[in-house]
């Protein structure tokens, strides 16, 4: 047997490789088609259904819901509000997580493992439980206000408003941000920093000229992930918002569960998907610019 024939099975002809790719991709494509694509299409169809004031839905197609969305300024405010609040929370999460991720990246051995477990452990508790934890901390007679009182300072309203939602969501999103940052820190090499230091660069210059540019992919990934999670989260805004913070996700919940306007809930859901699409486009553009 010649060497060429022996190698043949390892390098199959192009056509059968294509078949293999299709075969390997088929299961996940099928799951996505059934579990994601079909419901989304169904949602899109429902957004054109007619709805009566009582909530009764008729399978008659109408543009009324979409027209209402365009003409009622409340929804424009809702979108601007949701996007800006989510961006703010993403930025805050980044600022809080970046130093932790950098420290984690540089630590070694058992210490690194312990820290990593500490960072991931909040994910083992559900967001509901953690949000109730924040209620205990931020309430009028909670830990923070009691401490303020002990120092002779006036109590602050820290929950049932945007402040509470921001604090709660930032903490809930931090583990995701830290993990995403760590995943994107691959290009960061301590030897480059050492070289810069040897050449006389002060710490801030090293951070600005070397560390920050090299960690941009991680920052982009973390921001994308946290923004998407922030826009779609509704439990924390529901529990900490006190009915004062109007966001897309909470409005979808209200329309679907309380007001029973399923077509409107469906329309808003499609809108959220469009916002996600926009975020993904921005992310790919940003990544291309960085790399």
């Amino acid at each position, binding site marked *: 047997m010649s060497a060429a024939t022996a190698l043949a099975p390892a390098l199959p002809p192009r056509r059968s490789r294509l078949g293999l790719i299709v075969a390997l991709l088929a299961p996940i494509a099928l799951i996505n088609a059934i579990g994601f694509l079909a419901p989304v299409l169904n949602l899109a169809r429902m957004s054109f259904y007619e709805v*009566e004031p009582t*909530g009764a839905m008729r399978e008659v197609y109408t543009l009324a819901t979409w027209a209402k969305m365009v003409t009622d300024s409340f929804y424009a405010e809702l979108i601007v509000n949701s996007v800006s609040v989510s961006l703010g929370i993403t930025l805050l999460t980044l600022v809080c997580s970046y130093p932790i991720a950098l420290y984690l990246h540089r630590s070694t051995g058992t210490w690194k493992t312990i820290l990593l477990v500490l960072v991931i452990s909040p994910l083992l508790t559900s967001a509901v439980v953690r949000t109730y934890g924040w209620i205990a901390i931020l309430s009028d007679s909670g830990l923070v206000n009691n401490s303020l009182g002990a120092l002779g300072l006036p109590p602050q309203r820290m929950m049932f408003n945007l402040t509470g939602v921001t604090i709660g969501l930032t903490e809930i999103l931090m583990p995701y941000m830290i993990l995403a940052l760590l995943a994107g820190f691959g290009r960061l090499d301590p030897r480059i920093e050492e070289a810069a230091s040897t050449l006389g660069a002060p710490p801030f210059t090293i951070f600005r000229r070397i560390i920050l540019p090299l960690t941009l992919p991680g920052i982009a990934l973390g921001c994308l992930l946290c923004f998407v999670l922030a826009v779609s989260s509704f439990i924390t805004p529901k529990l900490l*918002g006190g009915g004062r913070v109007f966001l897309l996700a909470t409005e979808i919940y209200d329309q679907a569960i*309380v007001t*029973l306007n399923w077509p409107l809930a469906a329309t808003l859901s499609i809108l959220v998907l469009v916002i996600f699409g926009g975020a993904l486009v921005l992310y790919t553009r940003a990544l291309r610019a960085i790399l």
Partner: protein
Amino acid sequence: MNLSTKLTIAALLMSGVSTQVLAQQQTVTVMAYAGLFQERYTKAVVEPFMKANPGIKVEYFPMPNSAQMLGTLRAQKAAPQADVVIMDVSVSKAATDEKLFNKIDEKVSKNVADLYPNARIPDVDGVAVTFDNLVMLYNGDTVKDAPKSWMDLAKPEYKGKVAIPGMPDIQGLSLVLIMDKARGGTDYLQNVDKGITALGEIAPNVQTWEPKPEVYPVIISGQAVIGAGWNARAQVNADTSGGKLKTVLPQEGSVFQINTINYVANGPGKDAGAKFIDYALSPEAQKAFTESMFYAPTNAKAQISEAAIARTAVKSMDKVIPVDWIALAKVRDPIMEQWRRKVIPLSR
């Protein structure tokens, strides 16, 4: 015939009998609220029904709210899994319009004839099975002088201490209707401006418009000290909290919330569903559930103990403002709009 042959025949006969019983065994699936409602309703109505009808087994299928019940009914329209549904009247109207129910009338249950007139809602296939009403709640440890008026919620001493389930929840909507009437509003279907103004005066005091998980524990724990909630749950919570939670029916009055019982079209249990509905509307079931959870009865013939009836709105019917929830659904959107623009901003 020897003994073993006799035993064999006996065994055969027995098995024949038991298969017959099995063949007669029917199952009724009742979809209704989870939690406290499930616990009390099972004890007061479901278990006595099964005792009286050994051939029928009742499966209680708990759901967190009426909207999710409607969602389930919609999803199972082709092959329903439930026979009986207990849900809020507005949702029942939506399900009626989508032709998901059989009409409940005297042919389904003779008890329908004994229901109070407002328990039979025009253009809704179900009939009322419980009445509840909005009450003012307060923490008896902190609030020493019992409040009398809904406007006490606007008193300066309660700044940041008020918990009201706000709109789109119908408790917030109910409060708008009550205050609109109290301030001289004549037709809530035309406008509720006066009610919105009154809520705007309460708004600066409000700590949360979304008390979670419910308003009752929030007031019992002292996180808030005064607010609004449903009477039945408040009464049970008043007992379980050892009297810490107190309730009052304020001078401006209240409105009824109606839970209807509905007969699902093409349910798997067939006529057994009608039997359960008949029992649920009977004076004895109505009495048992009112005495257990303090929902006002819908059957006029139910003989309820004085102690229990005193804890419902039955003795203060003059204070109950009639609300047509079905007609109200048409103007809910504009009221919601005013709530967002004129009430919420004042509570920031």
